[in-house]
């Protein structure tokens, strides 16, 4: 091939620019999309946790990762705890009560073991587990499929590991509801204003047309309080809340001492809610 020096320099120059520019662009896109998922090392930890077993890589003590341990045995011993816990949450957060089950909104609710853990069917279940109910709520996963799905980042994982909802940005597409493997999310099918009795003035209601779910009481936790459901059963310690990344926290002590299970662990969502059976 016959080519002169000028053409050779042109081609070489453009290829160098393309390679350098290309790598910068790709890197920007990659880090950009990481920022889109999680605003904190939660994102990087997620990359590591995908390969490492358990939560080795997610244990970064400098970052909070809030979690919860629910003791099913205590809810079996005292069945009235369930109602206390649900009421505490729903009154604190102005969750409406609709007469039609179709419009139902719930952030935390009591259900049977076979519904909470459908991936563990057991036709010879023990009587206690089979009859009593346990509370289920949003698991605030480390790798939440709902956050991946949201087209506007209206649901996002904040720096404390809580999966939050930004009601101002939500367009109501309900893709997150389809993505959640645990059925934790509810939608405002109509205006909730008339269905909130005894409103709590320091926390807003939601408008119709947005998705809502448990937010681990981020507004209470941010001011140093415990979530409402934890406080409602604080004497029996049926629910314990704390920082999973702090190796000296109470929740980590309980996790070391008791055998715990999680909901549908095979899906790789790495939930932050553990259940003592």
């Amino acid at each position: 091939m016959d080519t002169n020096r000028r053409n050779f320099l042109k081609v070489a120059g453009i290829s160098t620019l393309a390679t350098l520019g290309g790598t910068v662009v790709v890197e920007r896109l990659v880090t950009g999309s990481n920022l889109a998922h999680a605003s904190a090392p939660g994102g990087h930890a997620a990359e590591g946790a995908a390969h490492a077993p358990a939560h080795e890589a997610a244990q970064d003590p400098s970052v909070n990762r809030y979690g919860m341990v629910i003791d099913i045995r205590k809810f079996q011993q005292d069945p009235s705890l369930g109602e206390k816990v649900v009421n505490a949450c729903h009154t604190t957060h102005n969750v409406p009560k609709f007469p039609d089950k179709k419009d139902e909104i719930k952030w935390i609710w009591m259900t049977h073991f076979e519904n909470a853990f459908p991936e563990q069917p057991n036709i010879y279940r023990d009587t206690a587990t089979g009859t009593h109910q346990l509370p289920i709520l949003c698991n605030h996963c480390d790798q939440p499929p709902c956050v991946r799905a949201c087209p506007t980042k209206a649901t996002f994982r904040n720096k404390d590991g809580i999966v939050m909802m930004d009601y101002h940005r939500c367009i109501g597409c309900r893709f997150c509801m389809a993505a959640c493997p645990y059925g934790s999310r509810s939608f405002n099918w109509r205006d909730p204003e008339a269905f909130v009795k005894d409103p709590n003035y320091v926390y807003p209601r939601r408008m119709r047309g947005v998705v809502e779910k448990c937010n681990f009481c981020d507004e209470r936790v941010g001011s140093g309080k415990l979530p409402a459901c934890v406080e409602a059963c604080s004497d029996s310690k049926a629910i314990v809340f704390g920082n999973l990344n702090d190796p000296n926290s109470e929740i980590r002590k309980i996790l070391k001492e008791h055998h715990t299970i999680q909901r549908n662990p095979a899906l790789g969502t790495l939930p932050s809610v553990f259940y003592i059976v």
Partner: protein
Amino acid sequence: MYDSGKIIPGLIVFVLLITIPIWYNRGGAVSEPPKPVLPKDAKTCVLPAAEIRANHMKLLNVWRDEVLRDGDRSTFEIEGKRYQKSLMMTCMKCHTSKKQFCDTCHTYASVKPYCWDCHIAPVE
């Protein structure tokens, strides 16, 4: 003029429609400038009066994004007292009546902010 029977009435209707903003609300309750009732026990707002009047919408959005999305609940100080970045726990603590404060200007300007779709207005 050809078709003047259609054009002249048409022009009159057009002029009436186009000037609706000028004559539709004349002499009504909102023809005078609004008089919001100011709080008696506080001298200054979180920003100087002219600035807060012009920018309170943006300020509330900034507060919302900082508190909700960044988790930054840091407080700020005015005349020795600490305040939170919150509509309900800061603004509404001094401006206690939505009807006598917020609505006076908003009705005059025909603005319908959607704050109150969610944030619960104080009982009047």
